[in-house]
């Protein structure tokens, strides 16, 4: 069972082809690295996988499942309901004055009890025979607008990053995107958000579920922060952290959602050698805890040291794939990075 499989992914921005026909598979509990010179399309590939961009062609499967809202019968049903509702409400809106006059104003005698049954029957009869005459056109217009809008809105929300994230995929970003105003704990708790059940009402009325969940997830967040070694400055603003800690906080936030698959985008960027060793142990412990890790990295010592398999990209194309040893020996990869010797 593969944790992640990408078939023939292509990503085209207008004329520029950023990623060309890349396919690869990552097994469960594996550490899989994606390397290549700057501008090889690594981050674009990541973004296409995690739903930030819509891949021009190709299919992505997470644990053998295509995470994309399919036009199931349930969706079709909701669409029809939306269209019918739109049609009815448009007709109602266009003729509201006549209906109100018939149903309420004509039946209501000032300061006397209102004959509700009569009012309702007048309304229903008037509304029904509206569809005989001009009402049909307004109904059609309403249906068209409502149905079209519902369709477009559904189509755009088919494969959003949050849908993919909720199916057990978490990621970090090349240039760190933390919630700088919020504290470390709050950043991590945002990562856990999709695992929480307490909703609007339990928060508003402070129901028992709210308190239970708060205690449970707060403890888990503190645990996670210790796991990445940030236990001491828990309530500071994320923005005030030094660079190395911000990287680790972002990893902690990604782990908060208990993902099956963790995608790290250049986690070692800007780290000194001792921090990199810490990072390597951290990645191994994450993998041992059961999470598959895919990382983009330039730091060869980290890549060669920790990854099980490596994919090499250049100018958006896949030029090699294999174990670290195979890749080290592969001339095409060396050339891609170090350029060719000039003969003579």
């Amino acid at each position, binding site marked *: 069972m593969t944790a992640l499989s990408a078939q023939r992914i292509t990503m085209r921005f207008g004329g520029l082809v950023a990623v060309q026909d890349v396919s690869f598979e990552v097994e469960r509990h594996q550490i899989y690295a994606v390397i290549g010179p700057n501008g090889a399309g690594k981050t674009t590939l990541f973004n296409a996988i995690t739903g930030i961009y819509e891949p021009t062609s190709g299919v992505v499967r997470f644990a053998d499942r295509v995470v994309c809202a399919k036009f199931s019968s349930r969706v079709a049903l909701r669409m029809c309901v939306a269209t019918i509702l739109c049609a009815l409400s448009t007709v109602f809106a266009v003729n509201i004055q006549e209906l109100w006059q018939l149903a309420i104003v004509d039946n209501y005698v000032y300061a006397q009890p209102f004959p509700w049954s009569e009012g309702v029957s007048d309304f229903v009869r008037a509304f029904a025979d509206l569809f005989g005459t001009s009402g049909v056109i307004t109904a059609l217009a309403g249906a068209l607008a409502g149905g079209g809008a519902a369709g477009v809105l559904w189509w755009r929300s088919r494969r959003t990053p949050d849908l993919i994230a909720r199916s057990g995929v978490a990621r970090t970003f090349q240039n760190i995107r933390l919630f700088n*105003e919020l504290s470390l*704990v*709050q950043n991590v708790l*945002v990562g856990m*958000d999709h695992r929480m059940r307490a*909703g609007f009402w339990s928060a508003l009325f402070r129901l028992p579920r709210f308190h239970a969940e708060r205690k449970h997830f707060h403890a888990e967040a503190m645990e996670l922060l210790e796991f990445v070694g940030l236990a001491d400055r828990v309530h500071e603003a994320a923005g005030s952290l030094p660079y190395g800690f911000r990287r680790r906080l972002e990893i902690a936030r990604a782990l908060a959602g208990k993902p099956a698959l963790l995608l790290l985008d250049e986690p070692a960027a800007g780290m000194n050698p001792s921090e990199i060793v810490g990072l390597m142990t951290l990645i191994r412990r994450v993998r041992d805890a059961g999470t598959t890790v895919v990382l983009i990295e330039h730091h060869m010592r980290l890549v060669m040291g920790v990854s099980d398999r490596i994919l090499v990209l250049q100018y958006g194309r896949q030029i090699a794939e294999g174990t670290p040893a195979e890749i080290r020996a592969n001339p095409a990869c060396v050339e891609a990075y170090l350029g060719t010797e000039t003969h003579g």
Partner: protein
Amino acid sequence: MRWRPGPIVCIVGIAAILPLVELVLPPAAHVSEAVRGVFLYAILALGLNIVTGYAGLLNLGIAAFMAIGAYGFAILTCEIYPFQVGFWPGILLTLPIGALAGFLLGAPTLRLRGDYLAIVTLGFGEIVQDVLKNLEVVTKGTQGINPVPAPAIGGTMWTADDEYKWYYLFLALLVVVIVAIRNLERSRLGRAWFSIREDELASRAMGIRVERIKMLAFSAAAALAAFAGGLSASVLSSTGEPSNYDFQVSILALCIVIVGGIGSIAGVLVGALVMIGLNSIVLVKATAALEALGIGGSANVLLSPNNWKYLIFGLALVLAVRLKPNGLVPPRIERRAT
């Protein structure tokens, strides 16, 4: 940790004792009626603060939802229609009515970029006035709907004379709204709002249902605005003309939030006090004073103090924002609570 009273508790405390202090003051110095207006606008601005302060979605048409609340409340309770549900059921019903209106506007437009949404809400504010004016069979057009009932706590239905009853009712409702918003702010939902304000893409990558969270903020703001609309219709015992809920009201609410301190409840309360104070106490007293000197009423436009009001209002805004860009009481994000 010694419990030290936060700014909100101080403001509410001062407001509670104001009428008692006023008993000793001469009638001319009575400001409690104007301060009641501050409470009303504070509730409206707290609603706007949720959508613009917490979720970062600029809403330039909050007055439209206030109008929907006022007219919804009036239709449900006025004696010229058969519903007559009474004050308390009516005022509570304004919340779902406002939320529904927020949903109807929000559903198709919440995916838009920030400034597009702002212009759409601006347009919505304009057309709600038009629709209310045109559907005169239902809304009585520009005559507005009256009489709108008042609460009847303690026997008879209140009238405009029971000033202090209204004052304490509005203060109590304001406190309820503050507690409710604080509960939402310090919860999973509040965190989600802050996260989409900080970085929507990152919060989406963390699995937050961004559309639903935005819709909740939008509907909560609309519900509170409708609630404020119902209250204002009740205290004036009439909805007034549809054009009483126009762009100027939205702008006043927006300025309260931003001048006061966007994203902070205490800031909004202070902002309401300052803006409404400037508008209905300072300006009125200033013009009355100039009037007493016998100036005004002549052909020359410069001499009538009433003609200076726009300038004073506009200058106050520009200077307030320039001196305090983050507002008078900037938000202290509660990092302690989770």
